[in-house]
């Protein structure tokens, strides 16, 4: 029963990881920008929700919209003010990484000045667990996170496969020059990718805020998980990132059956290392070994 409990906890975590990783993977796959500040978007969305819902006492729908707006402003702003100027000069992958890391440091410390360094939780009735079966405790959040993840993934795959803008965005990943030849603006498409990717971090941020809570330093963890899921799933594959996110979430929780909680990150990254050494192209990626 404990194993089942851990698996279900893992599913909840995994769904959130899948959403976060999908945003990161989308941005990285389509624009080739290593958006290491994706975790900062998550932190901003979470704290925006916390502020509006818990501190200002607004209705949860308004708080959710507020969190979405904050995430989009931050993600798009970062692209326009930081990444695009850097890309203009022939910058390496790591120039972007260091700049993004700088942004993470700034966000983390601004948030800790305003809200303190500790964890904050928004109180709702949703997070209270009830006993479903003898010894099995579940809160409605498990179902909500599964539902939200499925909804968002359905929406994003519809968008990418059926709409014109979605198709152009996928073209951007293959050949930005060709996109320009067809009269579309790669920069504008990249901006849309950043907006969508940032929105994907919002539901995960909100559900984390009302379940286990968030701290200003949680951004690092979010980026590491996103990166791991992106690689395990295969770069450029949203489905891969999503499935890998679920696998990592479940593995992290089920591992608790055998080892202490201090080993969870090590478990995640051991899986990542195994994949990189044995199957670097990931679950759905193309072969890339050099």
């Amino acid at each position, binding site marked *: 029963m404990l194993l089942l409990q851990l698996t279900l906890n893992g599913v909840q975590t995994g769904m959130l990881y899948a959403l976060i990783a999908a945003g990161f993977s989308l941005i990285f796959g389509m624009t080739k920008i290593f958006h290491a500040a994706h975790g900062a978007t998550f932190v901003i969305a979470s704290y925006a929700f916390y502020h509006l819902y818990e501190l200002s006492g607004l209705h949860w729908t308004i708080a959710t919209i507020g969190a979405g707006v904050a995430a989009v402003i931050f993600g798009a702003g970062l692209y326009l003010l930081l990444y695009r100027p850097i890309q203009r000069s022939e910058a390496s992958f790591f120039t972007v990484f260091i700049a993004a890391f700088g942004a993470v440091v700034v966000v983390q410390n601004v948030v800790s000045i305003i809200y303190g360094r500790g964890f904050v939780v928004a109180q709702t009735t949703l997070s209270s667990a009830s006993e479903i079966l003898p010894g099995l405790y579940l809160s409605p959040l498990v179902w909500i996170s599964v539902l939200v993840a499925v909804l968002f993934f359905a929406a994003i795959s519809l968008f990418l496969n059926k709409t014109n803008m979605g198709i152009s965005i996928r073209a951007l990943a293959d050949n930005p020059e060709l996109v320009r030849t067809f009269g579309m603006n790669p920069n504008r498409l990249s901006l849309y990718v950043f907006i969508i990717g940032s929105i994907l971090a919002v539901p995960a941020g909100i559900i984390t805020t009302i379940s286990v809570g968030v701290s200003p330093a949680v951004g690092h963890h979010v980026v590491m998980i996103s990166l791991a899921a992106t690689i395990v799933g295969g770069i450029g594959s949203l489905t891969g990132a999503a499935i890998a996110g679920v696998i990592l979430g479940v593995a992290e929780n089920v591992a608790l059956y055998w080892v202490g909680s201090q080993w969870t990150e090590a478990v995640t990254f051991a899986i990542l290392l195994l994949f990189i050494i044995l199957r*670097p192209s990931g679950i759905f990626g193309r072969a890339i070994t050099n």
Partner: protein
Amino acid sequence: MTAYLLTVFVFICVNGVLAVTLNFILGYAGIFSLAHAVFFGIGAYVAANMALYVTTDLFVSSLAAVAVCMVFSVLLALPALRVRGEYFVAASLGLQIIAVTIFSEWHWATGGLGGLVGIPSPTIFGFKISGPLPMAILGLSCLVLVTGIIAILVRTSLGRNLMAIRDSESAALAFGKRIAAIKVLSVAISAGLAAIAGSLYAYYVRFVNVESFMLDTSILLMAMVIIGGTGSMIGPILGAFMITSLPALLSYVPNLPAQHIGSIQQIIYGLAMMLLMVFQPSGLIAFFKKREKSDVA
């Protein structure tokens, strides 16, 4: 006051050694490692254990640290042989995270989260080295020694082979270069020399715990190399100087609210990184190069 400045100076030397050794694989071989703090850590733990239980002789304990680091460097070389680019970054990140977990859980070797305390001062041929000034001299000698070794290595055939691999792996392969051996060797050299910084750090601070060897340290080392300028000797040292002395300089800024001083320092720090990358993406070294050019003109 002087003691404080000397302390900052020793840390600049420690970080300088780390940045120079990281740049050896990053700038010359194109191996973007986010796990350099792991070797810094292994070096520090080995030196600390040697000092506590075997000998305080600086040479013996540093050599032991170098040897152990070179052995463990295989763990980083293995993924480097398989993948490049962002895949390798992710692999090194994985190594870093797993290493931190092991550092904090392997109690008898690392003292767990509490770390190893009461490390005695080092001795050279029986003479005890203690106090800020002798340590600063020792730190500077380490930095000069390591930079010298790397500067020579870069000019040998190994260095040219590395740059060839960085620029085009298939071309180097076509010229009959043994890429695997060259990569393994360069990673071993980088990790081994990083152990010297670990040893110096352990002896100076006289206390090591996992906090100093986490992902943040690896990222900061990466930042030093990038901010200073990759693929040069002076660049990483410049970067190490800047990143290490910035918090110290910021502590002289008046009228900061005491309660948030740490956070405000970090914010200035983060902003500086962002601005530098936007306006000077090839690193601080470019300022100097530009001036040279304009002098000629």
